C-alpha cells in the first residue's frame, strides 16, 4: 500500500531524520510509530501523507512513485489518506459539522449527499452536541475526536494519526484507541504515532521504533 525503499530525509545537511529506511505498510495493517520527542515520528507521517518529499530513495503510495506525480495527482492520492494532525488543524471560522465535512466539500461534493453521513459520524464520535459549535470552544478531547472524524469522513484507505492521545486523559485515550480498532476491523489501515507506551500495551500491534534515523520493527 505504502512503500519506502532506502529513504533518507533531512531538513538541513547536518542531521538525518531518516537514514536509509525501508518500510512497507500493508493494507489492513495496524502500526504504532514510536520514538522519543524529536525522533522524527511526525516527519515520517508527513512523508506518507506526501507533505514532505524524501531527500533520497523511493516512496510509492498506492502504487504511484511520488517523485513523478503532478500536484493534482498528489491531491487525489491525499484524498485516499486520512490524517489526524497533532495540532488538529481545525478551522475556527467553520462549525464542527462543517469542519468534519471539509474533505468532502473540497472534492466538490454536494452537501445534500453527505449531510447524513457527517451527522452519523458525529454521533459515532459522540459530538452531536457540538454540531454547530466552533472548534475554539471545544475541549481538548472533543477537538481530538472532531479531528478524527474529519480524517474518517472521506472513507480513506489508510489513516495516519499523529499523537491522537496526546492531549486527552487516559479514559478518552482508550476510547479513541477503540475507535481506531473499529475502523481497522472495517478494513482501514491505521498508523498511530505516539510516545505513550500505555496505549501500545493496551492493544498489541506491530511497533515501528524510530531512533537516530533508523527504524526497528517489533511484531
Amino acid at each position: 500500500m505504502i512503500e519506502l525503499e532506502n529513504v533518507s530525509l533531512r531538513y538541513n545537511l547536518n542531521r538525518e531524520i531518516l537514514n536509509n529506511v525501508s518500510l512497507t505498510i500493508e493494507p489492513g495493517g495496524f502500526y504504532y510509530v514510536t520514538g522519543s520527542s524529536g525522533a522524527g515520528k511526525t516527519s515520517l507521517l508527513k512523508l506518507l501523507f506526501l507533505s514532505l518529499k524524501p531527500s533520497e530513495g523511493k516512496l510509492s503510495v498506492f502504487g504511484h512513485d511520488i517523485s513523478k506525480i503532478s500536484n493534482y495527482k498528489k491531491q487525489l492520492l491525499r484524498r485516499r489518506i486520512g490524517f489526524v494532525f497533532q495540532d488538529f488543524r481545525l478551522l475556527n471560522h467553520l462549525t464542527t459539522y462543517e469542519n468534519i465535512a471539509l474533505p468532502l466539500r473540497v472534492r466538490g461534493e454536494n452537501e445534500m449527499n453527505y449531510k447524513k453521513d457527517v451527522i452519523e459520524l458525529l454521533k459515532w464520535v459522540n459530538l452531536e452536541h457540538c454540531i454547530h459549535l466552533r472548534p475554539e470552544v471545544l475541549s481538548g478531547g472533543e477537538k481530538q475526536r472532531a479531528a478524527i472524524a474529519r480524517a474518517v469522513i472521506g472513507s480513506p484507505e489508510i489513516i495516519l494519526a499523529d499523537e491522537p492521545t496526546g492531549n486527552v486523559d487516559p479514559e478518552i485515550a482508550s476510547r479513541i484507541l477503540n475507535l481506531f480498532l473499529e475502523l481497522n476491523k472495517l478494513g482501514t489501515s491505521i498508523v498511530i504515532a505516539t510516545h505513550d507506551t500505555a496505549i501500545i500495551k493496551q492493544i498489541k500491534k506491530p511497533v515501528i521504533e524510530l531512533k537516530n534515523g533508523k527504524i526497528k520493527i517489533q511484531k
Partner: protein
Amino acid sequence: MEKLKYKNKIKILSSLESIKSLNKDRIRSLAPRPTKLIPNDGVAGKYLLIIISVMCYTISLLLCTISLINNTITSSQISISLLQTFNIISPLIIILISIAICSVVIFATNAALAGNKEIIQVLNLMGASRNFIAYQIQVKFINISILGGVIGCILTALTILLINPLYNQLFNMVYKYETDIVIINFSNFQIYEYLFILIVPLLSGLIGLISSRLAIINILK
C-alpha cells in the same frame, strides 16, 4: 439584529431536526447556508469596490466621449486636430486605468492570500485542488470587479442624462455667436448608442479574474 436572531433560530432548528429525522426536503428548507471557506474581510472589500467603481466610471465616460466625438461634424481645423489628439490619448488613459485595476486586484489578492494562509494550508491538506482553492479566493474579487463595472456604467449613464440637456443649452448659447465650436448631431444620438459601455463590467470582471488568478497561481506553487 432581527435577521441575526432568525439565522440562529434556523441553525438551532436544523441541528435538532437533522438528528431526529433526515427527511431530505426538510433539511433543504432548514439547512443554514454554508460558511464561506475563505472568510470575507468586509472593509477591504468596500474600499476595493469604491476604487474599481471610480476607475470603471472613468473608463466608460471616456468611451462615451470617444464615441460622441467620432459622431461629430466639425467645421474648423483646430477642432479636428484637438479631437484627433483626444482620440489618441483616451485609449492610452483607458489602458493605464486597466493596468491600475489589475494591480489593485493583485495587491488585494495577495493580502487575502497572506491573511488566510492557514486556511489555505488546511484546504491543501484536505486534498483540495489548486483550482478549487484559487476559486474560493477569486470569487470575491471577480464579483467586486464586475459590480464595480456595473456601478461605473450606472454612474456614466446618470452623468450623460444630466449633462446632455445642459450641453445642448450651452451649445445653442455659444453657437449663436458663431465661434469655433464642434457641431454635434444630437438628433442622431440615441440612448442605445451608449449601450456599448456594458462591455466595461465584462472587461473589469475579466481583468479581476485574470489578475487574481495570476497572483494566486504564483503563490500556490
